[in-house]
């Protein structure tokens, strides 16, 4: 391909992209924001109710936090299974993605789709298609921070 043809192709692609941007529906930013704020806030508020209840039973702050994470993950896995969580997600957007329930939702939703590939390398592997990258980056940053601390305190 000579230089002119390459140039032409580049311009064509640019024009195509502009056209796509024009036709693509613009997100209703205000409505999406309100939904995300309300749903995310309600999920965290509900978790706070559970934390406060467990603290009032005399549980330590760390244990209460872990227990509430487990409860939220369980609920999200269940509601993803019966199809309710993804319906909520269509409206709530980031409000249902950012909380830890969104992490559980991503795990179940991607694993469920690959059942036909079997329970070991279908479901078992696809559990990590979103959870894997998330944990990789979480662990990586934690180890780097830990190593910096080791280095600074030696």
């Amino acid at each position, binding site marked *: 391909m000579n230089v002119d043809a390459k140039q032409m192709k580049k311009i064509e692609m640019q024009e195509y992209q502009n056209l796509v941007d024009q036709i693509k529906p613009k997100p209703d930013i205000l409505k999406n924001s309100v939904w995300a704020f309300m749903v995310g806030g309600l999920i965290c508020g509900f978790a706070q109710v559970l934390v406060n209840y467990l603290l009032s039973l005399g549980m330590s702050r760390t244990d209460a936090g872990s227990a509430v994470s487990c409860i939220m993950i369980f609920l999200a896995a269940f509601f993803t299974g019966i199809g309710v969580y993804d319906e909520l997600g269509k409206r709530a957007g980031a409000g249902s993605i*950012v909380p830890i329930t969104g992490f559980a939702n991503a795990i179940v939703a991607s694993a469920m789709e690959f*059942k036909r590939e079997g329970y070991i390398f279908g479901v078992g592997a696809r559990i990590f298609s979103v959870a894997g990258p998330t944990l990789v980056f979480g662990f990586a940053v934690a180890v780097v921070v830990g190593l910096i601390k080791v280095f600074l305190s030696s």
Partner: protein
Amino acid sequence: MTPLYMAFLGGGLLCLIGQLIMDLTKANITPGHILVGYISIGAVLSGLGLYQPLVDAVGAGATIPLSGFGHLLVQGTLKAVESKGLLGAFSGGVEAAAAGITCAIVFGYVAAVLFNPRD
């Protein structure tokens, strides 16, 4: 104990930021990107000592968003480094987050096996 409305406000704002990132950037940001971004940024802020004040102020509003999971990993790592040194840098994070990770995998697997996707 953190009052309820603070958890609501904190959690709502963190989700609002995620929504604005998705709506206002041209790049195609998927839920996966949001999750990876939040855990990484939460972990970095935690390492700089900036996330704990947020947790003190809004409680579950900061620990339930995935950035709080990054915070948990980093704080577990830092605590383990104090007591065990170098080994702690590799063991502390997962130790602190063990319950959450195990629940996510086990409950996630069971739910995916028991239920079928709706079309």
